[in-house]
């Protein structure tokens, strides 16, 4: 166990890609615990990846890439500005609203932050927001957005924990609303102190036009969720419909994707799929090692000793996943730890869907945790801002997001009411 941890930390610190870091740590574990370490490593990687549920992963990645380039983000931002831009701090709030809607069609947080940062940061700076504040707003909005389905992390959790992906998807909507509201209130107060002017209030006609213009992208979540909840298709199958819809809109309706660009978009999505898939597979080996080291059993024994409650366990879980979200991007942490943690959570009477959503929200915060969260890097890259400067602006937002997370932890009802209402649990 010590050796595997050391290999992991050393390679991570050296800057070895996380997939290879996790893979080599897993191989070190196999060396210790398996008679045929090489074959076991390869076997475990394949079986981790070879699952029909994970098929929706490349498809939602591809759908996201098609929409990033398809003029969809720009139209959604315009709609969000028309909706809330006229309130004090409204432009910042509009970014939060736009990200909520955009994430409703994109399953990838990296796609979200790229698209939303590129389309909103210049506008915010022109309106008097400092670049640091603009980056912090986009980053915290994207951290919230991971909860809005579709969501790749939820797909992976569904696969690892045998939970219904549709139930997880549905459970994310309201916790995202809570996080978004907390952020908006904070932005409203901040804008008051900074004296930033609001946008002009749109006329009914302008508002209607913005809606009309965004109607096609808004149709996407309707199709995805209508299809799943209406019993027409499974989440995996819905992801194919999302790809076809995004391609048709981008190529034929908006005509912003040229035929000659399509192969590159598809290949890039395959490369992202490769990076994510390898990470998942490699994490499977570490998970196998921890299992044969009896970690699940040990954890269960430990938790029965801690006089505690489900709340202690939930907060500890949230802290762990914020940390891993920042350091190794969340997905491998779920594969490695969730199989051990889930039985403990169940033993404490925590609803698995609530538990999963807390993890997703924590990973979202971790992805933008200064100074190392990968999402923050992307936002800073697009704004051409140093991470050090963004860090100071981002810290209060991390506190605000944590406040939202605490509410989600304390009130399971927020997570569970929608899936219950829709009869998914």
């Amino acid at each position, binding site marked *: 166990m010590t050796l595997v941890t050391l290999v992991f930390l050393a*390679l*991570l*610190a*050296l*800057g*070895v*890609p*996380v*997939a*290879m870091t996790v*893979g*080599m740590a897993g*191989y070190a574990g196999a060396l210790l615990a398996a008679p*045929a370490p*090489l*074959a076991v*490593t*390869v*076997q475990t*990687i*394949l079986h981790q*990846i*070879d*699952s*029909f549920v*994970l*098929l929706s992963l*490349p*498809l939602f990645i*591809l759908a996201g890439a098609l929409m990033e380039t398809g003029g969809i983000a720009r139209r959604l931002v315009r709609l969000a500005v028309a909706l809330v831009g006229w309130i004090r701090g409204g432009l910042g709030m509009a970014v939060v609203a736009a990200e909520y809607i955009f994430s409703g069609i994109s399953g990838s947080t990296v796609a979200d932050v790229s698209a939303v940062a590129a389309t909103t940061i210049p506008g915010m700076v022109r309106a008097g927001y400092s670049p640091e504040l603009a980056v912090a707003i986009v980053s915290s909005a994207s951290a919230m957005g991971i909860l809005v389905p579709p969501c790749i992390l939820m797909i992976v959790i569904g696969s690892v924990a045998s939970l219904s992906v549709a139930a997880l998807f549905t459970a994310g909507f309201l916790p995202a609303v809570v996080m978004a509201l907390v952020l908006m209130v904070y932005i409203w107060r901040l804008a008051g102190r900074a004296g930033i002017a609001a946008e002009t209030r749109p006329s009914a006609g302008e508002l209607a036009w913005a809606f009309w213009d965004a109607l096609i992208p808004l149709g996407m979540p309707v199709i995805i969720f209508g299809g799943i909840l209406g019993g*027409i*298709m499974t989440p*995996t*199958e819905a*992801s*194919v419909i999302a*790809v*076809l819809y995004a391609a048709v809109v981008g190529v034929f309706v908006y005509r912003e994707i040229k035929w000659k660009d399509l*192969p590159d978009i*598809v*290949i890039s*999505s*395959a*490369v*992202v*799929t*490769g*990076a994510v*898939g*390898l*990470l998942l*597979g490699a994490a499977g080996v570490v998970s196998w090692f921890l299992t044969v080291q009896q970690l699940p059993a040990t954890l269960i024994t430990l938790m029965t000793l801690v006089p505690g409650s489900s709340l202690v366990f939930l907060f500890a879980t949230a802290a762990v996943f914020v940390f891993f979200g920042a*350091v*190794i*991007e969340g997905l491998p942490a779920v594969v490695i730890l969730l199989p051990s943690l889930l039985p403990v959570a169940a033993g404490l009477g925590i609803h698995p869907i609530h538990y999963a959503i807390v993890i997703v929200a924590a990973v979202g915060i971790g992805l933008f945790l200064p*100074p*190392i969260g*990968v999402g923050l*890097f992307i936002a800073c890259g697009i704004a051409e801002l140093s991470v050090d400067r963004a860090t100071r602006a981002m810290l209060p937002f991390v506190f605000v997001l944590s406040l939202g997370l605490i509410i989600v932890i304390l009130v399971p009802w927020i997570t569970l009411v929608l899936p219950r209402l829709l009869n998914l649990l």
Partner: protein
Amino acid sequence: MIVDLACLALMVALVVDVFLGVFSRYVLQATFQWYDEVARLCFVWTVFLGAAVAVRRGTHFRLHLLIDRVGARPRRAVDVLVTLIVMAFGGVLVTGGLAIAPIARRQVTDALEISMLWFYGALPVGGALMILYSLPQLWRLVRRP
């Protein structure tokens, strides 16, 4: 470039295949039994070819925090080391793939009844490509004045 085209073909095949699965269930009322196996095969190959291309493009997610703080000379040594570790991982996939081949060869898949080597083969092929794509990077690092 051939690998890029293979990625393209696999993704397109995946989309078409899953679509045909839904189509056959609803419209033909006779579901193609092979569609989920073909989809999983495409996915597994996409992951390992895509991961190899990600090595070539340098787009695997990594932690920059510590190495960004060291000077140019140690930085180069670290970069060489990192490239070697990536190659070593490719080596694990290749040799592990060979080690499991005797076991995989005896199995056939459920629907297509093809050898499991078709699935397992993606790992050593991806590993070999990772090594191949790392070589020029290593060369550049070593040769740089």
